[in-house]
């Protein structure tokens, strides 16, 4: 059990979880995974202002989940697959800890029931 503390890691993780806590931002992540989409193209599909979508993209960018790339007059948004995978892995591992415990509880009960 080694606590492997990388500097600034804690702040990074806070931003990551905050970024993923919103449905619009998760949707933006999905759509940007296919390839770069401009902020204005993304904004067309949400019932909110361009500025609001731009803010969501900024939150995702600070969390390291997307990057922006200037292409002419447009900014293309691209999902950063490593960051997304890392957040998933964190939650999967926590879930797995409890799944393991519940499985062992079941085994104890099954033994008694003669299953």
């Amino acid at each position, binding site marked *: 059990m080694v606590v492997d503390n990388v500097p600034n890691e804690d702040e990074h993780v806070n931003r990551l979880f905050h970024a993923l806590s919103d449905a619009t931002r998760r949707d933006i992540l999905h759509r940007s995974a296919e390839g770069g989409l401009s902020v204005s193209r993304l904004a067309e599909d949400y019932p909110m202002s361009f500025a609001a979508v731009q803010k969501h993209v900024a939150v995702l960018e600070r969390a390291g989940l997307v990057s922006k790339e200037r292409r002419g007059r447009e900014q293309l948004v691209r999902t950063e697959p490593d960051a997304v995978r890392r957040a998933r892995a964190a939650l999967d591992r926590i879930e797995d800890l409890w799944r393991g415990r*519940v499985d062992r509880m079941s085994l104890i009960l099954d033994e008694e029931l003669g299953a």
Partner: protein
Amino acid sequence: MSVTSVDKDFENRTLTMTCDFPVSVERTWELWADPRQLERWWGPPTYPATVEKHELTPGGDVTYFMTGPEGDRHHGWWRITAVEGPTSLEFLDGFGEEPGEAGGMPTVTMRVEISGHGDGARMVLRSTFESAEAMEKMVEMGMDEGMTAALGQIDDLLDA
């Protein structure tokens, strides 16, 4: 499969797991209330737990250590905040030898609720992490039970 649903709430840093067992509420409660049974499921097979103190009363403590493959010991504790056997238990779950002393380690508030469900019992486990940082530390600390396998499974987070 005993686990019937899992909910991950990023905003509230909470993992909620619902499980159904084909036994009574009282029998399910014994998994928590009997230290010898608790020892059989708390730690993974490679890190079996030994319970030293087991006071299921408000303000009481449960202390244990897990023994690793090389005889290494890892201490942990619960500080009980609420208990109403056989249906509910709430405690602060932390690491270290001194109950209530987090010492920079992550603590989690655990809420256990057991109720009758059909012919059996339903147990709802709610883990609330004090901060996103605590969540991540928990992960970094290992608790390696088949975790690599889980990494391949994509949860429905991004489909939500």
